[in-house]
Each structure stands twice: as structure tokens, then as C-alpha cells.
């Protein structure tokens, strides 16, 4: 399993047209000026995977994730992110070479999830990802500016981190 592609629409600094980022396995790097949208790409990935804590995506409420620059409107005011996983090793228990997880959020904050373009719900997505060890609780995403905090975990936090993964 690896991330093959992310399609972003109306999410944070990405306008109301599809922006596609094609990834490859291995080590890939994203760079660019401050404020260009690097962290927002990572936010778009965890958003599609079901992340619901606004603070983790650096907003005060989920609705602030919708692109808010006027003049770019060409479609509905909504945020959409689709993550395409390469699933040729079938680690995600779905019988397809690519697993596409899509999340849409409209301006009322209503969310709709799709698995390979078919409607589903959040807990189904979370379960599938957990089975592939690709879920949100994996400690595999380190937000900007927080890496040293992992070394500052208390001794209980360190124990709990291992306990949670068993």
C-alpha cells in the first residue's frame, strides 16, 4: 500500500478546480515558499482519511477548511479530497488494485464519504484503514513544529503509545 494520488478540490488554499498530485513509492519531498500550500496537501490527505479534529488541520472549525477566496467559485462551495492508494498487495481489505477514498464536505458541514466512488460512511473508512495499519492513530503523521514534542512525552505517554499499538 502507498499513496498514489491525491485530488484536491476547494480545500484550504486549493481552488474550486481539481488539483492532482501524483505520488510514487519511496521518499518523496514537497517544497516551496512559505504559505504556498505544502502543509495543506498533508491536511488534505488526513481529511480524506476521516480526520475530524479541526486543530490538527489548523483551523478553528471544520467549515473553515472550505476554500474561502472569492472569485474562484465555479462550482458548489464545498471541499473535496480523494486519496488513491495503491492496493496491489491487498493490505486494505478491498478487492481492487487501487482503493480510492473520497470525502466531501458542503458549506453546512455535512460530510459524505465514498469508497471507490460508492457512498459509504466514516467508520467504514476508518476500519478499512486500520486493518492496513494506515489509520489515523498510527503516529505516522507528524505535524509541522511538533516533532520535538514526541521526545518530550512523559513516561506514561510513552507507555500508552506502545499500549495503544498492541
Amino acid at each position, binding site marked *: 500500500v502507498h499513496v498514489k494520488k491525491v485530488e484536491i478540490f476547494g480545500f484550504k488554499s486549493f481552488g474550486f478546480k481539481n488539483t492532482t498530485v501524483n505520488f510514487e513509492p519511496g521518499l518523496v519531498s514537497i517544497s516551496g515558499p512559505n504559505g504556498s*500550500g505544502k502543509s495543506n496537501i498533508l491536511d488534505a490527505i488526513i481529511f480524506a482519511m476521516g480526520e475530524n479534529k479541526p486543530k490538527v488541520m489548523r483551523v478553528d472549525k471544520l467549515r473553515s477548511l472550505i476554500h474561502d477566496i472569492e472569485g474562484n467559485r465555479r462550482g458548489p462551495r464545498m471541499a473535496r479530497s480523494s486519496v488513491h492508494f495503491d492496493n496491489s498487495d491487498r493490505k486494505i481489505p478491498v478487492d481492487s488494485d487501487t482503493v480510492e477514498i473520497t470525502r466531501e464536505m458542503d458549506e453546512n458541514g455535512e460530510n459524505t464519504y465514498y469508497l471507490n466512488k460508492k457512498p459509504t460512511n466514516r467508520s467504514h473508512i476508518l476500519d478499512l484503514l486500520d486493518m492496513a495499519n494506515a489509520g489515523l492513530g498510527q503516529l505516522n503523521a507528524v505535524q509541522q513544529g511538533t*516533532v520535538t514534542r514526541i521526545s518530550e512525552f512523559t513516561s506514561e505517554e510513552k507507555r500508552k503509545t506502545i499500549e495503544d499499538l498492541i
Partner: protein
Amino acid sequence: KRQTFLDAFDKVDKEIRLIFNKMTGGNAWLELQNEDDIFNSGISYLIQFPNKPKRESTSISGGEKTLAAIVFVLALQKLKPSPFYLFDEVDAHLDAPNSEKLSKILEERSKESQFIMVSLKDSVVQKAKLIYGVYPKNGVSHVVTYKDKRAPSVKAS
């Protein structure tokens, strides 16, 4: 439950020793604070850089904490291997030699898992298979892909 935890603890501890030593030439390891009462006590994470005494991970320098943290995250892989990692400027406080050490380890580990790294440092960009340049145009983000190693030099936009 106790035995399952101890097996997991040993796996992570062993992996920490391996990765930290390979990366820095020093030693790092975990210690149970109270083996008789594991679930009401904690775990110490001890770090010893070359030519320095051992210290708890909480009282080393900022750059040293970065390396110790990444080693901890990678070692947890032994319990539940993640297929991919999302790292956002984890190398911000590293000096040039340590950035280099970090990117070497990640390059090696990227054979097993995918690493999507946001970084402003050359050492990572040089080793990455693919580089994405993100740039704003009137506040809207655009992404371009660079196949060759020459990263988009960050020009004032």
C-alpha cells in the same frame, strides 16, 4: 496482557537501539520504570550521543530531540508497520550533518514504506525520488512535479 506488552516493549527497544546507533553512532534505549507494576508506571527513553553521558529524551537539545523522536516513531513500525508516513518539516532544527543523517535513514526505510516529506532543506530534496514544488498564485496553490533532482529554488513569489 502483561506478556503481550513486554513482547512489544522488547521489539521497540531493540529497534530503537539499532536505528539510533546506525544513525548517530551513539546509543538509545527504553527502560521500564517499574517492572512489577507496568500499567501504573512509565517508560524512560534514554539517549546517549557519542562522547556524551546518557540523558532522558526530555533534557537533550532541540536538534537532538528531533533525531530521538524520529527514531521512536520509526521503531514503533515494528509493532504495526505503517505503509506511509507524512512528515511536515521535521528537519527544521537540524544542522547540516544531522539533516544528512536523517535523510539517509529515511531513504533506506523508504524501501519498505513511503515517506511524504515537506522539507525546505537540501539534504532531503537531493535524496527524494520525486520533488513537488508548490507555489501560490493569487492565494491559490498550484503544484508542479520535478523529475530531476534540481529542486525548485524557492523564489520570492
